[in-house]
């Protein structure tokens, strides 16, 4: 009887182990989360609210994207900024300023500057780096966030990747592969930004957080909230849509 018990214990242990092996590794988790968020193609309408201790401002924008390589962003409000567009094609980013009839190519040196005065940088906006290929990933453990069981992942950028962060800690929902929280650390391991995913909703058939909040770590009272007004995935979009000519034409 005792022997049976031990055998059972061993079997259970082995069984657990083999079950554990079926779990995705860190890279796969990020890959799935990324795929879920971007889809093959995606289109969205976003309201961005920039909150500062003494004031608050709203920007509305429309976005189009194919995977991580092609992104187009068009501002639709406020009136003075209407028509301004940002285009990302692979490694290059362009900005169309209708009020001066100019297309400006954003140099890499501007990637870390604030986008339209928000807590997002130009780099965040266009996601120049690839979260799957440009980082090495490691699972640190699990934790519950807003009642959802999450993996805690550590992402460290490769030396040659065009990434300014020293380290990212990401909380990814185990069941639905949603990034619910991300902490951005600089090269000296100081927390710079925290991004929170909130109000998980079914949007175009996918369960995703409909609100993203970016909170700079050391600046009290500052916050940027991104709210998806609508989002749709996998609608047909051609890469030819992502051209400078089209960026100027979009209304």
């Amino acid at each position, binding site marked *: 009887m005792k022997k049976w018990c031990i055998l059972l214990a061993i079997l259970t242990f082995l069984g657990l182990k083999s079950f554990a092996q079926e779990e995705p590794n860190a890279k796969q988790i990020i890959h799935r989360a990324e795929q879920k968020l971007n889809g093959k193609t995606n289109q969205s309408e976003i309201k961005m609210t*920039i909150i500062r201790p003494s004031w608050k401002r709203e920007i509305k924008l429309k976005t189009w994207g194919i995977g991580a390589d092609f992104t187009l962003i068009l501002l639709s409000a406020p009136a003075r900024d209407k028509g301004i567009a940002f285009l990302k094609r692979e490694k290059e980013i362009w900005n169309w300023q209708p*009020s001066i009839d*100019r297309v400006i190519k954003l140099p890499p040196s501007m990637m870390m500057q*604030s986008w339209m005065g928000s807590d997002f940088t130009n780099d965040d906006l266009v996601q120049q780096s690839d979260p799957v290929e440009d980082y090495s990933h490691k699972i640190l453990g699990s934790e519950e966030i807003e009642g959802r069981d999450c993996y805690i992942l550590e992402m460290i950028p490769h030396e040659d990747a065009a990434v300014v962060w020293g380290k990212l800690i990401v909380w990814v929902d185990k069941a639905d592969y949603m990034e619910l929280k991300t902490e951005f650390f600089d090269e000296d391991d100081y927390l710079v930004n925290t991004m929170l995913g909130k109000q998980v909703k079914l949007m175009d058939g996918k369960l995703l957080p409909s609100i993203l909040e970016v909170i700079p770590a050391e600046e009290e009272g500052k916050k940027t909230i991104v709210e998806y007004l609508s989002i749709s995935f996998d609608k047909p979009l051609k890469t030819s849509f992502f051209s400078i000519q089209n960026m100027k034409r979009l209304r």
Partner: protein
Amino acid sequence: MKTLLKLSWRNIWRNKRRTFITVASIFFAVFFSVFMNSVQRGAWVRMLDNVVNFYFGYAQIHQKGFWDEQSIEKAFQMNAEIEKLPQQVSGLEGMVPRLESFALASYGTNTRGVLLIGTNPPLENSLSGLRERVVKGRYFKENENAVLLSEGLAKLLKISLNDTLVLISQGYHGVNAAGKYPVVGLVKFASPDLNKQMAYLPLKVAQGFYGAENLITSLALKIKDKDAGKKVVRAVSDRLGSDDYEVLGWQEMLPDLLEAQKTDAAGNYLFLIVLYIIITFGIFGTILMMTKERSFEFGVLVSIGMNRMLLGFTVWLEVILLGLLGALLGIIGSLPVVYYFHLNPIDLSGFSKDITKVYAKWGFDPLLPAALEWQLFFWQAVLVVAITSVLAIYPIWKIKNLQPVEAMRE
């Protein structure tokens, strides 16, 4: 007393050569120090006038903390309280509202960083005389969609009159700021730095560009009477309180200029001290000689019953007379020279390129006008009289301890 004065006056002229030497050395000391002082003073008065009038105004009002950050986020709104200031504070003649920030200016393929200033055209002209700086084209009008560019900047951008300048920047609260403005005029600044980076828009247009309706970053105060400046600044500051606003005089906005002035003045003082030490010894030398030469005479006078104190006083008067004579001549001699250079400033650009550059850094031509101020002359005279009266203690002391027999034998 009158007799003593007469006596010492005649004594001076008994040995004309000695008198000439003494008077000449004092004359030169006074002449040089007056001249140097007035040139130095004149240069600084001109420099401060230039800087203060050229742009800053004697003082400026900002929102608290603006000067340290120089950020458009520290813009503020004019309110009734501020607008009333010129009526309430005497000595404050006017205020120029400005909205200042940085922008990129572009024409064709050339782009430059510029200091973009939104200002009220007529008020700006009344403070800094911007209209007179227009070298090409015309001055801009209120609410006109037009930009005034500094001449050097226009050259760098290869832009000419009536071309359209593109400006791009980040506005108030991080808004996108971009706009096109035709160049209506070119302004010239003596300072190459400023000449390469100044651009002016009418205030309303700049407020539109930066998305900062009705906001300004600074109010330049117009104060004609520089001597009352500090008082006016304090009065304005008291009225506004220090919770929301800062009222800064040019001394606080340009501390390096103030330091430069102090350093220059200190160097000058050092030079004058050395000059006066040399002169002091020169005068002392002649006094020593005189005391020695006249020891027989002193001995005779004392032995026939002349009061030692009276004798000492006479000699003291002689020395003072010499000093006054030298100082007076020095002042009379330097007056026309100072006056000439007051009207015709010394032009240093002929001497060295470097000097020109140093002055240009502060924004003006290397001209040194002499200041014509009575204090400068007056203090030289006071100083010389003070030095000579101290030196004259020597013969008095000598006479006091004089042994008539020995003195006559020497």
